[in-house]
């Protein structure tokens, strides 16, 4: 069973400047990016349904807009995943480690139950 910690410890950390900075850095990256890739994906699906002439236009050989658009969804997914891992490693992990290290060294919060 998980040990019940004194909740005031978490509230104190939450109110701290460092945690607020971590929260801001996480949310200001993840939330807009989520909206962006969802809009980009829905644009693709809507065009696939309602703009078939445009999607069927040939670009070169038998490669049409639909295929390129679809492959671009793969490319954007790979790029966003890579960018997120870079962002998290550079901007989020150091603060999270510091906060966790401080709290654990003060021994306010024990390890999770095994």
């Amino acid at each position, binding site marked *: *069973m*998980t040990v019940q*910690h004194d*909740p*005031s410890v*978490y*509230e104190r*950390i*939450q109110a701290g400047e460092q*945690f607020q900075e*971590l*929260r801001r850095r*996480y*949310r200001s990256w*993840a939330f807009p*990016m*989520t909206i962006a*890739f*969802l809009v980009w*994906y*829905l644009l*693709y*699906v*809507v065009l*696939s*349904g*309602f703009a*078939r002439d445009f*999607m*069927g236009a040939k670009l*070169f*050989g*038998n*490669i*049409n807009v*639909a*295929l390129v658009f*679809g*492959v671009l*969804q*793969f490319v954007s*997914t*790979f790029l*966003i*995943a*890579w960018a*997120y*891992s870079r962002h*998290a490693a550079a901007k989020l992990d150091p603060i*999270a480690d510091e*906060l*966790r290290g401080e*709290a*654990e060294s003060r021994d306010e*919060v*024990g*390890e*999770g*139950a*095994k």
Partner: protein
Amino acid sequence: MSHETLSTILFVIFVAGTLAITFWASRNTKTASDYYAGGRSFSGLQNGLAIGGDYMSAASFLGIAGIIALSGYDGFLYSIGFLVAWLVALLLVAELMRNSGKYTMADVLAFRMSPRPVRTAAGVSTIVVSIFYLLAQMVGAGALVGLLLGVHSEAGKIWTIIAVGLLMIIYVVFGGMKGTTWVQIVKAVMLMVGAALITLFVLGKFGFNLSGLLGDAAAQSGKGEAFLNSGLKYGTEAQGVWGKIDLISLGLALVLGTAGLPHVLIRFYTVPTARDARKSVLWGIGIIGVFYLLTLVLGFGAAALVGSKTIAEADKAGNTAAPLLAQKVGQDLFGDVGGTVLLAVIAAVAFATILAVVAGLTLASSSSFAHDLYAHVFKRGGATERQEVVVARIAAFVIGAVAIALSIFAQSLNVAFLVSLAFAVAASGNLPAILYSLFWKRFNTAGAVSAIYGGLISAVVLVIFSPVVSGAATAMFPDADFHLIPLSNPGIFSIPIGFLCGYLGTILSKEYNSAKYAEIEVRSLTGLGAEKATSH
């Protein structure tokens, strides 16, 4: 030697190998953390492979290749939703869940709520979603293995379902998460190697000229240029505007459902830290993305080299497109023996794929039954971990047996829609509850319960009154007609309903606990107090 004999030999080797792994895993499964989460000791790469193995079902391997081979571009469109969905899991869910949960999806939802109602709702939703998905996979398995092994009798299909069901029960009951994960890793490697090999042969035949491959595919499909654009399967012009809205509805459920699928979510608990969870999703995205690109070549390759007509004659859903393609390229390159070997290999890969996916689903539903319903609802948190694991094993056996019985009953019905329904329920009920839990301070018990039941019930009710259940030749009950809604996919309505129910439930209840929100927020973002890996 016929390809059926060779396939059977390869099946037996795979089964023997995975059973050996299962018994090894069972000797190393002592604690609840071992059983539910594999001791949290898998690496990011191992779990990434297992994510691929868990996620790339026979429906996506044979099914998507088949849709592309018969209906062209629409199969590709389908696979893109499956991939983009992983960004939701990566950016919003995986790490935060690993940090704040323990064994099941409900651990995160019940974190700051009244545990019994929330765990009941989450347990019900987990079991419903997993059983829908499981039924679709097992009914598909009966037909598929029958096709691949040349078993066409009704009795043969029933025995196939029973055999698949029994193996899945053995993997889960004895191997727990450790055994299941290794089965999925082995399967993922087999699937990637098999798909890459055939893709290479196909591209080689066209001198690595994709445009030439597409041109031949369009010509051999009998559909011409329309084959390279959407609209032959989803949202056809004949269905009018509702068909196109249905396509958008499907896309929404696919992209939002993954991060709410319980069998996907419990994979994040199998690694030591949130950072490993992130790494495993990155590997998962890479593996799944490459796999769907390979499937694109396989599908168009099958249309170009085998021909859509031949594929449709072998199986009207196109499920044998990839195996037929394997046989064809093998024959062209290495003669009849080559064709036999490649066909048998792909058939064995498909069999491994089915087993790995159904094992993951059985594990997710039995874990939730034991940890959420038995330990926290029936026993009010009073069960020991030892009792929980015993109950989880019994539950895996019972759920497996029920799934076998239901699949035999359902095998003459068209239940393929259950996969998209599982995604719709996950997107409409589970995802709103998870996102609100992690990010909305005001969220509370009434909100969580309303979101889950609201999303679950609206998705199921919309589907019952849709053309996939009645009122169409391809419906589950083609002779009845009580359909009221022209949409086959409920997501476009049920997802907003789920989010709205969660919102209304929350603001209409006075419950508010900012201290618990502080705890989940700090824990989820910093990893403070997160469950540690066990070491043996």
